[in-house]
């Protein structure tokens, strides 16, 4: 009797802690949601439960002639898609070479990549700006995508290389004996086996442009080329139009699909990441 009482107390203690965590987690999220439903733009009158719900901000984003929201969405999708595709192609073939070939300068290149991976791209932004300026790529998607693909290359390279290292070499060795060339081995054997980590890289590189406001802020000038994050960030960063409610509405429309994808794939993501990092 005494024992089961103690156990019951413990379990309710656990539930209590979980409940507190639920409140701490859901409170800001609900607040963000209700913020987007508050009419008007003033933060002073914001309420968790507004007196009159309104979808005016959502409507404004899509229908108002001065709203560029759909254009930004399109821009972001273009950048994200090309970035994802280019990153996956480049990263996987380079990772294949680093994982399977022994060549002059290999070890030093790995050291260089490992070191570079630790430096944030932000540190070199002034030079990147001047460089893109010299080659006329400022204010273009090409410039933006180049920075994303190669800025993220060292980090992604290690994820994929680590994963490829865990795939036994016997597989490609025996394929080679059967007369398969390097590219056949790569596309037919390694890519299918490494698909979990390649999916992780694809997802991360696809999602990055949705939330990065910093790189576009430096590279993109014309409003019709803004990506979502930059455009939305300007809603609240603008000194004269501090528009939190509009910002909330705009971000919730990105946050919902991304969160759903994330929750569905999280197990997959974790195992991909953990395998590459711990075994690699």
């Amino acid at each position, binding site marked *: 009797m005494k024992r089961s009482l103690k156990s019951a107390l413990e379990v309710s203690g656990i539930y209590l802690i979980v409940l507190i965590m639920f409140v701490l*987690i859901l409170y800001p999220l609900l607040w963000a949601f209700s913020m987007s439903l508050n009419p008007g733009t003033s933060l002073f009158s914001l309420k968790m439960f507004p007196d009159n719900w309104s979808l005016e901000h959502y409507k404004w984003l899509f229908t108002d002639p001065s709203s560029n929201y759909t254009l930004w969405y399109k821009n972001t999708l273009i950048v994200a898609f090309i970035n994802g595709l280019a990153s996956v192609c480049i990263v996987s073939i380079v990772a294949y070479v680093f994982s399977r070939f022994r060549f002059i300068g290999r070890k030093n290149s790995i050291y260089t990549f490992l070191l570079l991976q630790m430096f944030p791209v932000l540190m070199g932004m002034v030079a990147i700006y001047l460089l893109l300026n010299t080659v006329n790529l400022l204010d273009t998607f090409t410039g933006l995508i180049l920075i994303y693909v190669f800025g993220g290359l060292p980090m992604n390279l290690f994820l994929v290389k680590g994963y490829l290292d865990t795939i036994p070499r016997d597989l490609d060795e025996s394929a080679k004996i059967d007369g398969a060339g390097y590219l056949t081995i790569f596309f037919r054997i390694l890519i299918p086996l490494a698909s979990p980590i390649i999916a992780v890289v694809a997802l991360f590189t696809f999602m990055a442009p949705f939330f990065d406001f910093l790189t576009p802020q430096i590279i993109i000038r014309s409003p019709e080329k803004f990506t979502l994050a930059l455009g939305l960030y300007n809603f*609240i960063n603008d000194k004269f139009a501090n528009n939190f409610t509009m910002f909330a509405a705009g971000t919730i429309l990105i946050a919902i699909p991304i969160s759903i994808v994330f929750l569905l794939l999280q197990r997959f993501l974790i195992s991909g990441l953990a395998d590459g990092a711990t075994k690699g």
Partner: protein
Amino acid sequence: MNINALEPAPASRQNNHNPVLATVLSIVPGLGQLYNRRWIKGIVFLVIGLSLIAALSVPIANSIAGMITLGDNPETDDSRNLLVQGLLSSIIGIILLGLYVLNLLDARKDAKKRQEGTRTPSVRQAFQDSWEHGFPYFVVVPNFIMMALIVIFPLLFMISLAFTNYNLYNSPPAHLLNWVGFANFKSLFTEAVWSKSLITVLSWTVVWTLVATTLQIVLAFFLAVLVNDSRVKFKRLIRTVLILPWAVPSFMTVLVFTAMFNDTFGAINRDIFSHFGVTIPWLSDPTWARIAIISIQVWLGFPYVFTLITGVLQGISKDWYEAADVDGGSRWKKFRFITMPHVLFATAPLLIMQYSYNFNNFNIIYLFNKGGPPVPGQSSGATDILISWVYSLTFKENNYKMAAAVSIIMGIVVAAFALYQFRKTRSFREEDMY
């Protein structure tokens, strides 16, 4: 098919073909290869090599000279462009030098083969060979060149700026830049405004990295163990909700938090603390701002670690705990000697990565309060970490020289940490497994 080709070379084919001579000859690219009777290769090398030298040596020398002077005439010269061109030329120069050395080695290798009497391969054979052996280079070299442009060159540029006098008041194209040696570092360490800022930022960066990350890990570990308890029901639901802060983009949540923590009309002061009759200056008081920002990072960061640890906990065999029960081990002992070692062993590399992630966690600092609130007598704000300070020095104050000097200090910290990592990373210890 020529059957003779498959036979080993008879001893009589050994000749006095001289590898040293071949190497010396290919000081002019291609000549060594011609001496080796690799006609096509030799001509290709000769043409490409001579034209590269003819076309590039003067511009490269000029741009490096330009980088050394940084221009003499403010009307025509833009020091920034001279610096960019100089650095790019140096990078190209180094690459060409590398190719040149490869050319020498190639002549030597072929000559050695010839000396041992190996037949000259046919053109087709040669192409096949170069694909076989050259494949890794074909893949790595172009990518490395792009990396050099987009990642290495900007870092070199930043390093160079630290030794110039480039700031808002002395900026091209109106003015010329000059090399000033270590003057910027001297003022960084000796002038009160800078040294005070540097010390506060550096110490806050360390505190921020250690405290925020450790709290994240401790909270995640604690919750993971609790939820993993066999008596808890609705595990799936609980885990899904606990992961939400990770799933929702932080770009949005940090900015929502900024609104919530607002001193006057934020929800936290209005809905919670107003009941107790206090208003906490979350955004304008340094200490409160730091507390707020650490709490936000813990909120944002614990779910990732929670998911990692949950995965490990589910994998620990029950036998361990049953054996401990037989021996009468207490709950704490089971945690200390079974759970902890398992979890830490499996997740250590990823946890260390969390620390380095927070060290460079520019987004949360900048989005929350732009590094503010400002501190009198200092160039940096109260919540500025190194990376966000560099950012505001660069883009807000246009004080490029100091930004560059600070980022070099940051680079040294990063590099030291990286070296430590190199020794730990398993991919290096097992590097020669194959």
